[in-house]
């Protein structure tokens, strides 16, 4: 099982040319120079399958769905043949104590070398009791697994930034992986869920170069999260012309005009949807007529409403009426004070007579 990758692939009927083609496309998507495809193929072909442990915490399994199901008939699924996925609750056959034993075993055998993938956030309230596996809290498991890993991939917005569980008022005290683990390289692959090829692309990068790709200030690979949705959006010319759809079924919506007024968060969202697209390049949210939700940004859930334009107030005005009343009250009060001052002045006014002047 631990021979070079190309042999493993050959055993599964995947030819060298299929693999080369895959690498060329992957390099192109990762915005690497065209020659990198061949270098990648060579490095990957010779690579030995690294052990990967995938820990699911407070999550919805959407990330696993995304990485496996939507692309399983296509070549991205192949990436799973390139790694030795030793623990993934949803995908593995083992269950219960056997599964936990598999994890312990993989961690021991590959100590210091395995890649740790985490999806889901980690609840901290009540000593982490909100999410446990086999009677142990998520924090506990994460700390133990992180201690022996080579690097961590935080898969999805929950693991990267806390995601939906962290949404206001954050009942479980959810935090991200990077809030807990400080001493290991961590790459965030946010998205709710992330685009499959972005996940596999980062894994391929790790396999090829043995390191994590260049990251932006939020820990995301620059090759996929370098541009905003808005910068690469094909509806951008309409934005610049000021042509906006105002409802989801008006003339503007039918003409495919910009969705800014319908709450599109594209201008502040860094992700690859506009270029890589979804479902094997079929389409992507804005192309299907719905604005971007901003799912790859921290706390997108509390961004003030998915259907509210970015320039609109995030919350309804709370103090406006009260402030107006207080202001008016203050004005009236001051005016009474002024009046009192005036009449006092009038009252104390003494008329000057000729006699006074002649004194």
């Amino acid at each position, binding site marked *: 099982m631990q021979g070079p990758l190309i042999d493993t692939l050959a055993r599964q009927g995947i*030819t*060298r*040319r*299929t693999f*080369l*083609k*895959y690498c*060329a*496309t992957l*390099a*192109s*998507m990762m*915005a690497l*120079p*065209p*020659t990198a495809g*061949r270098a990648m193929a060579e490095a990957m072909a010779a690579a030995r399958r690294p052990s990967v442990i995938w820990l699911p915490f407070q999550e919805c399994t959407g990330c696993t769905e995304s990485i496996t199901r939507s692309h399983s*008939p*296509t*070549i991205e699924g192949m990436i799973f043949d390139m790694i030795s996925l030793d623990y993934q609750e949803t995908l593995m056959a083992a269950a219960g104590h056997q599964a936990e034993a598999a994890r312990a075993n993989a961690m021991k055998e590959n100590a210091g070398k395995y890649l740790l993938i985490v999806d889901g956030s980690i609840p901290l309230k009540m000593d982490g009791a909100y999410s446990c596996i086999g009677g142990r809290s998520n924090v506990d498991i994460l700390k133990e697994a992180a201690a022996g890993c080579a690097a961590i991939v935080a898969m999805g917005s929950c693991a990267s930034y806390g995601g939906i569980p962290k949404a206001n008022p954050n009942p479980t005290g959810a935090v991200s992986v990077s809030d807990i683990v400080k001493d290991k390289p961590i790459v965030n692959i946010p998205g709710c869920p992330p685009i499959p090829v972005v996940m596999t692309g980062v894994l391929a990068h790790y396999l090829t170069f043995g390191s994590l790709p260049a990251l932006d200030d939020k820990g995301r690979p620059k090759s996929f999260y370098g541009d905003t949705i808005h910068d690469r959006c*094909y*509806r951008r*010319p*309409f934005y610049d012309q000021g042509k906006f759809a105002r409802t989801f079924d008006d003339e503007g919506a*039918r*003409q*495919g005009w910009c969705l800014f007024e319908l709450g599109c968060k594209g201008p502040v969202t860094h992700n690859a949807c506009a270029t890589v697209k979804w479902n*094997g*390049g*079929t389409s992507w949210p804005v192309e299907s007529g719905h604005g971007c939700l901003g799912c790859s940004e921290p706390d997108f859930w509390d961004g003030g409403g998915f259907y509210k334009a970015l320039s609109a107030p995030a919350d309804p005005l709370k103090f406006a009426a009260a402030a107006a009343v207080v202001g008016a009250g203050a004005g009236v009060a001051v005016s009474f004070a002024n009046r009192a001052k005036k009449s006092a002045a009038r009252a104390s006014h003494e008329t000057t007579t000729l006699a006074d002047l002649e004194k």
Partner: protein
Amino acid sequence: MSLDAIPIHVVNAPSGEPGLTGNAPPLLRELLEQVRRLLDTGEPSAIDLSALPLTPADLDWLHDKLGSGEIAVALQANGESTLNETGCPGVWWITHRNEQGAVTSQFIEVTFVPELVKAHPRDVAIGQEQLEFMISDL
């Protein structure tokens, strides 16, 4: 109910047919440079077409200019790939498609023979084994 009864008209590109952006002609100069390098040093090079801001019209223009040469290779590997020599020998237009037939990446390669066409020695070795096996069976 027929599809036209639904009052939606699909608009793919903002202004109907996207026109030429003027990004294609400079590529010809770059190709010339690359062909020179191939002749001088034997070093192959490639241009990743999906990484450039080219509209379909730009690609058509480029395709038209380069024309088609004598060799057209079709590769069946997880969807079809075509590796076609253009009117300029040594310049290859390479299109990778997935199983659904959608284009996944597109390159122009400047090389004597694209790497993907050549058989790898290790694969040839497997072929040799097969042949030996066949002969031993005769």
